[in-house]
Structure formats: C-alpha cells, structure tokens
C-alpha cells in the first residue's frame, strides 16, 4: 500500500502541497486530476522520493521514502513514467530498459536484455529495440519509458502526465497500453488531463486544488451529479477540460 499522511511541501513562499492524505491499495488505479499548479506532479515526485517533504510521511509497503535507507526499498517497489520520457539518450531502447534491472535487481545482463526485448514486443516496438531515443517518435519514446518502468516488475506504477507531450494518435497508443495494464491488475497512480480515460480505467479519482486534496471518491461517484460534480470547482474544471 502507498500511504500518504499529512504531506506538506513548499517551494519558497509557495505552498504546493498542503496536508495531503491518500491511500493507494494493491490493484487500485487512482487518477489524480487538477489544474496546472495544483500540486499533482509534486505529489508524484514526493512519492518517488525526488522531493523532500516539509512535513508528513509517505510510505510504500511500509518503507518510508524520507529515510535514505528505506528509500531504495521503496523505489524497488514503485516505478515512475515521466511526462518528458527522461530516457538516457546515449543508450538504445533495450539498454534503457535493461539498465536498472541489471544494476539494481541484479538480473543477469542477457536475461535483462531478453526481458527488455519481450517488453518492447508487447508494446509493438520490437523493430525499434536497438534505436536510440533520438531516433524514436514521442509515442515510441513514451512506450519505451513505460517498458523501462515495467522491467522493474514494480508493485506500483507512478505515471506523471505521460501523454501531455504526445499528439492524439500517439496518446491513444499509450493509453491503450495503460488500459491493458489496468485490466491486468497493475496498481497505478496517474496524473492526467485525459478525463475520459481516467473515467474509463480508474477505480478512484482524486482531485487536487491549490495543493489541497478536495475530493477522493470512487470513479462513478466522482463523475456523478450528486458526487464530485456537486462541487462547483470540480464541475468548473471538468467542464473546461471537456471544452478543450
């Protein structure tokens, strides 16, 4: 379980997260919605230990991400897919995927490479396995990013606006992969602006506004007229997103 308790994070005078409480149980798909600057990406960065918390605590399977000794274990259990891919440009797709399994999980290189190729095949990229990131399209890079995360065999997948840099066609390719992962029971926390997709695959929806968690509801309730939609801020946000 990912447990977020009373998390507060500020950058200078700007408070980005203000007392966030959230639990993500095994098998759940939790979408985090909110406008730009609401703290969604910072919450993901706090979950994977990239940001130090000012207050509160985040644990992943009881490993506290704020404690350096426990952070490594927490990171072995979760994997992140980034908005701008963050691939290593000097490595091929296969090498990008196999690096962490070899170095962190101590999987033999040949085995890790075979696993990486199998993952790439599962996302339709077997022909591009030996290409460098600069030789791949945005959608292909993001699929490599997803494979890189899956290669760690994580219990939890953290996804930070992974389709925001992609065109609609590439977005649908990537979302199809996520839908398959969700149907396979992969636990996911994803920050997204794809409202309809969030509605389709999420078990819960969390809405952040100005660093505060406004609602945390099962998906059906979130989108119901007398549920999340009853809150003016959420109704306004969803209406704006649908127009866009």
């Amino acid at each position: 379980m990912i447990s977020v308790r009373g998390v507060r994070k500020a950058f200078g005078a700007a408070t980005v997260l203000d007392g966030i409480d959230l639990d993500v149980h095994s098998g759940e798909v939790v979408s985090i919605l909110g406008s730009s600057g609401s703290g969604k990406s910072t919450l993901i960065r706090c979950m994977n230990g990239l940001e130090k918390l000012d207050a509160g605590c985040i644990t992943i399977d009881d490993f506290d991400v704020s404690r350096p000794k426990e952070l490594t274990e927490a990171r072995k259990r979760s994997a992140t897919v980034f908005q701008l891919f963050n691939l290593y440009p000097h490595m091929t797709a296969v090498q990008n995927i196999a690096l962490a399994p070899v170095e962190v999980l101590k999987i033999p290189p040949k085995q890790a490479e075979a696993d990486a190729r199998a993952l790439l095949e599962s996302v339709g990229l077997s022909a591009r396995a030996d290409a460098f990131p600069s030789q791949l399209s945005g959608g292909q890079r993001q699929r490599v990013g997803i494979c890189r995360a899956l290669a760690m065999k994580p219990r939890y997948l953290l996804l930070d606006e992974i389709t925001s840099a992609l065109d609609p066609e590439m977005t649908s390719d990537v979302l199809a992969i996520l839908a398959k992962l969700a149907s396979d029971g992969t636990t996911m926390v994803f920050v997204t602006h794809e409202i309809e997709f969030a509605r389709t695959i999420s078990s819960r929806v969390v809405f952040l506004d100005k660093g505060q968690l406004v609602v945390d509801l099962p998906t059906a309730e979130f989108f119901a007229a007398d549920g999340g939609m009853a809150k003016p801020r959420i109704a306004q946000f969803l209406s704006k997103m649908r127009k866009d």
Partner: protein
Amino acid sequence: MRYTSFTSYDIVLLAQGLGVSLALFLATTIIGLLLGSLWAVIRFYRVPVLTQIVTVFAELLKNSPVLVQLFLVFFGLPAFAKLNVTPVEAAVITLSGNTAAFVYVIAVSAIESIGRDQIEAARVFGLSRWQVLRHIIAPQAMAFAIGPLTGLLVNQLQVTSLISVIGVVDLTKIGNILNLRTLKPFVVWAMVGALYYVMAKLIAYGGATLEKRLRAHTAWKGL
C-alpha cells in the same frame, strides 16, 4: 673549427627528444585527466571543504603562467619545502597540475550539461550515486568533453616545450642543441615544428575519431 653539417646521429637525437616529449605528454595527460575528473566529481557531489579547496587550487593553476608554475616547483619546492625535485619530476608535477585544472573546468561543464531529468530517472529506478556516475553521467560527459579536451591536449603538447628551460632534454632542447651546433635555425626549427605539428594532428585525429564514436547517438545527418 665547428662541424655544422647534419649527421645521421641527429635523427637519433631528434627521436630521443621526441620520445621524452611524448612520454612526458602522455604521463601528464593521464595524471591530469584523472586528477581533473576527480576534482569535477568532488565538485558535482558538493563534497564539503574539498569542493572549496579544489575550486581555489584550479583557479590558481588556470590563471597563472605555466612557466611561473614550473619555476615555483623546480626552484620553490627545494627552497621552501626542502624537497629536491629533478627537472623531469618538476615537469611532471607542473604539467599534470596545469592539465588537471583545465580538465576540471571542461569536466564540470560537461557534467552540468547533462539533463537533471535523466539523473532523476536513474535515481528513481534505484541506481546508486556511483552507478549513475558510471552509466549515465560519465559516458555522456565524455562525449560532451572530448572536443574541448582534444583542443586542450593539443595545446598542452605545445606547452611541454617549456620544460626545456629547466634542463629536460625534450624535443625543443634537442632542437636548441642542433641549432647551436649547425647554425641552421630555419632548418632545425622547421623540423622540430613539423614534428610537433604531426603529433598535434595525431592527437586531433584520435580525438575526432573518439568523439564520433561517443556521439553516435546524436549523429547529425544534416538537413
């Protein structure tokens, strides 16, 4: 009566001088590369105290003439530290330190040119600092640095000629000896210059070849 004609033994002399210059260049390059890279890593990881020491030391070495540094080591160490150094030892110490200072600057900028997002990604996947340095930072920093490093090494090769003033019998010193004997400065110095030129071109060629290989992933195919 002076014997001013060239002899076949002069080729041996030139080859010896060339060997000394090359050996000193290679030794000081290796030491300088290792030392400069180590200083850059210290700076990258913001190691307390050591970072400040390294920064000040590199500043001093970068911003003072190599000849002054050479005199300080050769004449200064025996006088102040009661350490006697041979001309070759003084040359190795000075040129290694000077090379390290410039390697440090190049390595720091090469490291800082690597996107933080990649380092964050590697850390998130559980790679240790050492693994990040080895697999993510070093290969890319090398690719960024190889161009400026090649330029630096070509320059440092020319700088080795300064060591002849403290008595190291390098290529320049041999040139001086031949010049004094033959009284044919244009021929002697043209020959010495040509040998430095060939060595410099070889370094530049090696650097370009290595750069091409290291930057294969960003190969620019043109418009």
